[in-house]
């Protein structure tokens, strides 16, 4: 599963990145975590309020620092739908 964090380096984006790393460790298995900080790349996802969270190309959260459990839930939902 490919998980992308969209953010231009604001404090909230860094916070979300850490949460995602912990969530991935909790879920287990192999996941690719990418930090997208190029603004032109971010624009492609139609996200205006950062940080954004993208799982397998689908935007699942915008403008929020989620909790670890929330990210775990999102990853599991995406797994289920895949």
């Amino acid at each position, binding site marked *: 599963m490919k998980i992308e964090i969209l953010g231009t380096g604001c404090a909230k984006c860094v916070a979300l990145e850490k949460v995602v790393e912990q969530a991935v460790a909790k879920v287990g298995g192999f996941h690719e975590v990418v930090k997208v900080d190029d603004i032109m790349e971010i*624009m492609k996802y139609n996200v*205006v*309020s*950062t940080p954004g969270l993208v799982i397998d190309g689908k935007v699942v959260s*915008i*403008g*929020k620092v989620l909790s670890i459990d929330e990210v775990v839930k999102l990853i599991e939902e995406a797994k289920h739908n895949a």
Partner: protein
Amino acid sequence: MWKSFVDHLTVDWLGLTGRVNETVNFFIYDTVKILFLLVVIIFVVSYLRTHFNTEYVRAHLQGKSELYGNVLAALFGIITPFCSCSAIPLFLGFLQARIPLGVTFSYLISAPMNNEIAIAMLFTLFGWKVTAIYIGFGLFVAIVGGFVIGRFNLEKYVLIPVKPIDEKLEAGEVKMSAKARAKEAWEYTADIVKKIWLYVLVGVGVGAFIHGYVPEDFIVKYAGGDNWYGVPLAVILGIPMYSNAAGVMPLVEVLTDKGMLMGTALSFMMAITALSLPEAMILKKILHTKLIAIFFGIVGVGIICIGYLFNYILK
């Protein structure tokens, strides 16, 4: 009720008198009142705001005519949360949706000006009338400022090429249960209060000292309530203070008590929120300095006019 409790506390229990009493009494009364009301107001505002986000605003502004767009953008600035850290994606995202530069600036002026901390502090310290005046004239500056910027054809000063998207954007409602909204609003409130409580304490502390020890006519005499340069000076001083709005506003309350004119105070507070140095530094990555200077210039002049106007009316 709270006032009489604090009076009871400082006079009867602590046995304070005179200036010491006045200072301590003011400090306790104001700190608790401000922090309590801040929590309540920020919670209510953030709860309402969970219904909107920037993506929603963008979809709604897409394809609107210019003047109408300016008005709408300024109004949206009140009801959406704004963080200067996301100013860049916001700016480019708006242009990408072919929203005119002037309309984008209307939003960019209004959103930080009508932030929840400023509104909560104003309401707590000055009451609903001053808050309404602040919001009303803030909208006015955002609408006119954005419209004027739009007239200058400054698109060439946007340094990053934006590839426009032509399809109609979906204005997706934010789907959440009331419980989830309350939870999010509460987390947000806690986050803000954690960030600003110390500023509030310091601001009220200095304010309490002035309240107790600085003579009534001090401000009038030295900082010159009526000097012509009072308003522009207040605006210039306000520019570097964005992050400290919560600490500065209690001070402004005391200064107005001591003779600072309300128009000057209003300009000062608007400059603090609308003209932020960190935001300018962030925008410098994508906008030519000239465009940022014009943006600051127009908003600055607008705020100064409001200050003079109020000083004149209320005199």
